[in-house]
């Protein structure tokens, strides 16, 4: 990833539909050869952002730059970006080969080159034997591959993907995640990927952009986003977490659940009310003692890799993941090490626009 070369810049982009503001002045830089994921719940504005970059939606305010040039008014067919649509949007009257060749035919590519490049792309997506198939007879996964080949054959600088794996089953989705990442690295182009699936975002991305309510909440690497969520929304949306209110007495000392804990965060005002985030897998189950937060196990669910437990500590329910089985009704201690405790500023419901130091 070339961190210095910005390929797409969004500057103060806003968009409303029917009086409802979908995007509230967002800023985003996307770098060359980067795999960026726009992650958020439905209605957060991620698809609108993608469609603005693709040229299907014109922003109400703000500038969209492509390699430094403003392209707000450039129609989709003149942009060096291609899109893989959510519902594939293959041409039903054309076979697999012609679907992929569509873009090349428009620019009057010599027939020989069309054949070479289409075959190369179909090989890349493992569809070499499907050239003359009708697209409506292909499976969802195969249609998806045709859509990817059709977009990539035009050698775009940026590929936009709108929840491309949404309609596939879990196993296929995992395979495609791996393959998409491989394709992106091999082609050496920028991918902008929209999804509401946090696991997908963490698996594939170089950079994750967490969105909610038309705002960008956090931009960072998957590790940053997961380990250092900037607010309660990001923490609850990415992975599971326990979020409890607390008070930051001073740097590295926080009070919550009626006890003082040593943590590693600082830079808060004295006695500032904060949100404390603890990942369920970071909590260690130990024998109950005064040293630890204690509670009673109220439910245990087998999840395959681990057991998911709910532990009631004086009215607050803690979610805990553990590979060891503990029967319901047991009295247990919850051990939290300083690194397990993440402190966040309280955020208003609409989220925040400052996204901390996570920007690469």
């Amino acid at each position, binding site marked *: 990833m070339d961190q210095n070369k910005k390929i797409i810049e969004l500057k103060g982009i806003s968009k409303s539909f029917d009086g409802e503001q979908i995007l509230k002045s967002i800023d985003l830089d996307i770098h060359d050869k980067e795999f960026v994921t726009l992650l958020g719940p439905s209605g957060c504005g991620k698809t609108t952002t993608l469609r603005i970059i*693709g040229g299907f939606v014109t922003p109400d305010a703000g500038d969209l730059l492509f390699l430094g040039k403003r392209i707000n008014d450039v129609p989709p067919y003149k942009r060096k970006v291609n899109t893989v*649509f959510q519902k594939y949007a293959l041409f039903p009257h*054309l076979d697999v080969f012609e679907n992929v060749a569509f873009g090349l035919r428009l620019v009057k590519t010599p027939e020989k080159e069309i054949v070479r490049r289409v075959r190369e792309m179909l090989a890349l997506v493992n569809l070499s034997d499907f050239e003359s198939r009708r697209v409506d007879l292909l499976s969802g996964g195969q249609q998806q591959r045709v859509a990817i080949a059709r977009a990539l054959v035009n050698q775009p600088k940026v590929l936009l993907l709108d929840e491309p794996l949404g309609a596939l089953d879990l196993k296929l989705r995992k395979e495609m995640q791996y393959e998409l990442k491989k394709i992106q690295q091999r082609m050496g182009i920028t991918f902008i990927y929209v999804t509401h699936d946090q696991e997908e975002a963490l698996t594939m991305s170089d950079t994750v952009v967490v969105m909610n309510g038309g705002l960008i909440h956090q931009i960072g690497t998957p590790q940053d986003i997961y380990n250092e969520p900037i607010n309660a929304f990001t923490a609850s949306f990415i992975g599971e977490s326990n979020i409890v209110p607390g008070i930051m007495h001073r740097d590295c000392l926080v009070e919550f659940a009626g006890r003082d804990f040593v943590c590693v965060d600082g830079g808060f005002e004295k006695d500032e009310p904060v949100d404390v985030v603890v990942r369920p897998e970071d909590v260690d189950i130990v024998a109950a003692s005064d040293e630890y937060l204690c509670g009673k196990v109220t439910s245990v669910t087998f999840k395959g890799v681990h057991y998911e437990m709910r532990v009631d500590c004086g009215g607050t329910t803690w979610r805990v993941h553990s590979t060891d089985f503990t029967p319901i009704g047991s009295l247990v201690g919850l051990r939290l090490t300083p690194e397990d405790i993440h402190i966040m500023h309280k955020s208003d419901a609409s989220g925040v626009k400052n996204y901390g130091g996570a920007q690469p």
Partner: protein
Amino acid sequence: MIRLNAKWTSYPYIVWMLLFTILPLLLVVYFAFTDSSGAFTLDNVKQSALYIPTLVNSIYLAALATLFCLVLAYPFAFIMSRLSFSRQKMMSMLIMLPMWMNFLLRTYAWQAILEDNGVINTLLTAIGLPPATLINTSGAVVLGMVYNYIPFMILPLYSIMTKIDKSILEASSDLGAGFFATFRRVVLPLSLPGIVSGVTMVFVPAVSTFVISGMLGGSGNYLIGDLIEVQFLGNSYDLNAGSATSLLLMVVVLITMAIFSRFETEDSEEALV
């Protein structure tokens, strides 16, 4: 338990077909090849060759009307298919609305508009322009055909175009196709079946019409439908000759449609290559 796919459910339809389609067709064939005494003869069929100029004129005017319908209906149907659902419903309502009025009445109305002392000429004279001859021209006949049959062109086109998802048009644009390229490479091939059925639904009734030509075309625009009408109901009553002319018309329509649909499938196959 009643099985809906049971064979007997189709019996009423088969009976209906036999009684009102197959039987009349056979009767037409029978009368076309017999004389008034019931003996076999080819005279009627040979005689109907005299009407070929009339038939050619009918086909010409019907083809012209079909073409106008297509040119007008196509963009209309496309725009309509892109509207919001409630607006689409309103538009199809507006298209159907004139059809609630009797066909004859609608054509009478056009007569009143086009007449030498009709609405248009009155207006023309009022603003100091010379009156125009509108009624009793082949133009008036084509106008009447277009006016009466255009819903049958719009509706099949519209119904096929609603099936063209917006994302397919976006994909085309995304891949570099401008307005005309998207039309030629995506919209046109995908709407071909609608064009075929629309053309059929307009051309067939237009080529055999007698009301429109009779009321708007005057004596100079005598069409094959008028001829058949006169032979069956008018003063030159001749059941056998009328049947022969009908048969001729049917054969010509069938051939025209066969050539047309052939041309269309070849065209759509070409689009695949």
